[in-house]
């Protein structure tokens, strides 16, 4: 079981101090948060992707490769990478590069993005968001698995004889999670490919995803990747911790009330009652988090939202201390004790290498010589299958 944090990268005015951090301060803070995540014994750090203020994270692989360089064990990932408005070819290239630089300590989560204006900025149409996401992933999946791809689809210019470089580390594609809370087609795609399925589990009542996770598990088994219990499920959660319950509520309430996703609507207590939001003592957060397993079954990854709504860096780092010292060790123990022995761990680069090669050495692609026109001719790598004849477009 992996535990970690995810950030949406919002730059929000602190409603208590009245200060709004600069982009520079917030970007610096997120690096400290990620390092602290590893320091307190958590496993995963995830960052969102946005292309408009008040968010900073437009370039997740740049940030994540920096974080990977500063850490030893931490898995860096996204929450989410936009599979709609990014070119899947660029995703294939950038995340393969991140995979090499992090020595495999990465994966990624794909999401559609629901900020309508972002789509036209990148030449897309939100009304086509679902087919766009599905088609783009179909292509991404092939780009990481086939040395040479000929491809034609509806949304992107066709590819002829295309090789995405670098090839994935050890020729093992990064593990992919599909994030969704209401779209059966995304759950189906995750199941079809044997990928992970992630429900953000924040802001919305759990009923929204209980059915979809169940559907994903059934379809995962249907496609022969393992049993329903072995399907790879990740969940989010939003917590605010203090030593005692009253302090937690008192400290968090001004941030709750000012948060665009929470404020001016139902009370914090209503949200705690009806959604996975957990504001309280370590024991209360432990108890609430343990209910997730009861609703969704044994799962492999738990990410917490901690740095949202203008909370100052110092508070976030304190939250991480409490999470690492008092919450996660108990959750690890309790969940391990309850875990069905049939359930698989979340895939890591090491486990995927082992699954693909066993004890044999992984493939290390070496390109053929430059033909003189900056391409490698009919076959891109020295060990590419001979039948892979790339046909380049005529100039």
């Amino acid at each position: 079981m992996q535990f970690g944090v995810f950030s949406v990268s919002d730059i929000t005015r602190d409603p208590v101090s009245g200060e709004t951090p600069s982009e520079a301060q917030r970007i610096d803070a997120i690096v400290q948060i990620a390092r602290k995540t590893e320091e307190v014994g958590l496993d995963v750090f995830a960052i969102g992707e946005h292309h408009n203020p008040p968010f900073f994270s437009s370039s997740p692989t740049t940030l994540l490769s920096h974080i990977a360089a500063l850490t030893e064990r931490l898995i860096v990932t996204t929450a989410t990478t936009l599979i709609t408005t990014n070119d899947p070819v660029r995703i294939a290239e950038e995340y393969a590069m991140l995979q090499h630089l992090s020595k495999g300590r990465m994966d990624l989560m794909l999401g559609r993005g629901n900020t309508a204006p972002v789509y036209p900025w990148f030449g897309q149409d939100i009304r086509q968001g679902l087919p766009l996401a599905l088609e783009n992933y179909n292509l991404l999946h092939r780009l990481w698995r086939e040395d040479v791809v000929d491809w034609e689809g509806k949304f992107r210019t066709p590819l002829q004889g295309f090789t995405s470089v670098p090839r994935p580390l050890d020729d093992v594609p990064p593990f992919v999670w599909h994030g969704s809370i209401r779209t059966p087609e995304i759950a189906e795609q995750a199941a079809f490919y044997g990928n992970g399925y992630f429900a953000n589990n924040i802001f919305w009542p759990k009923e929204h995803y209980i059915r979809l996770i169940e559907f994903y598990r059934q379809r995962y088994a249907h496609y022969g990747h393992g049993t329903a219990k072995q399907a790879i499920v990740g969940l989010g959660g939003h917590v605010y911790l203090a030593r005692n319950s009253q302090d937690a509520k008192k400290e968090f309430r001004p941030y709750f009330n000012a948060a665009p996703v929470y404020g001016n609507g139902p009370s914090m207590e209503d949200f705690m009652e009806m959604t996975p939001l957990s504001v309280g003592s370590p024991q209360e957060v432990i108890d609430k988090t343990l209910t997730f397993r009861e609703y969704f079954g044994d799962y492999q990854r738990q990410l917490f939202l901690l740095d949202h709504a203008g909370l100052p860096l110092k508070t976030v780092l304190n939250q991480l201390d409490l999470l690492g010292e008092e919450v996660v060790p108990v959750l690890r123990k309790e969940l391990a004790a309850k875990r069905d022995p049939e359930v698989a761990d979340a895939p890591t680069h090491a486990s995927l290498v082992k699954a693909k090669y066993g004890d044999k050495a992984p493939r290390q692609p070496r390109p053929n010589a430059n033909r003189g026109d900056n391409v490698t001719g009919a076959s891109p790598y020295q060990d590419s299958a001979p039948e892979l004849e790339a046909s380049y477009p005529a100039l």
Partner: protein
Amino acid sequence: MSTYKLVVVSAGTSDPSSTRLLADRVAQRVDALAGARGHSVALRVLDLRELAGEITTALVSQLTGPKLAAAVAALGEADGIVVSTPVYKAGASGLLTSFFQVLDNDLLIAKPVVLAATAGTARHALVVDDQLRGLFAYMRTTTVPTSLFASTEDWNDPALPKRIDRAAFELVLLMESGFAQRIRDESWNAYQHEFGSAGGTEVGIDLDSDMMRLATGGSAT
């Protein structure tokens, strides 16, 4: 012969409220007329005043409180519906329109509905026909032909009970025809649904669709 589930939705706010009174009189006549034809009526009243907090919560967030959830379940099972609202500022009460705006688009498909409004002046008489019918057309309900409207002077006009009788009878015949149920049984998939819509009852997933083929490695058409 049959037991019809009748749900009254009233946006009246005082107690007693003339809006609720108008709805109750329709419900009584539906009960009597259905009874005369050998049916019985199980009545459920939703006083939106009691749901006001949960309705505004649902408008501004994704949260559905327990009372609102129970109201949605009752409407989802209803064979007939009576909707009654006061007129404020030449329009239906915002409480009423807010309530129907937070319901799933497919919750009320084909269900027979009596529309009624009350006002302090007869000048608001067209609110039902001009404003409410549009909302209920969007919800694809079967509104009965007779609209009900009662301003102060109507309460001692013998024409009002006659109109109530007419609307109630229209509702009984529409319930008796089984129209809404047959739409549900025979034509439900011809309407647009989303996963989890129709008050959380629409949970079937069609695997045989273009989008599902695209999800599993096919190409977009």
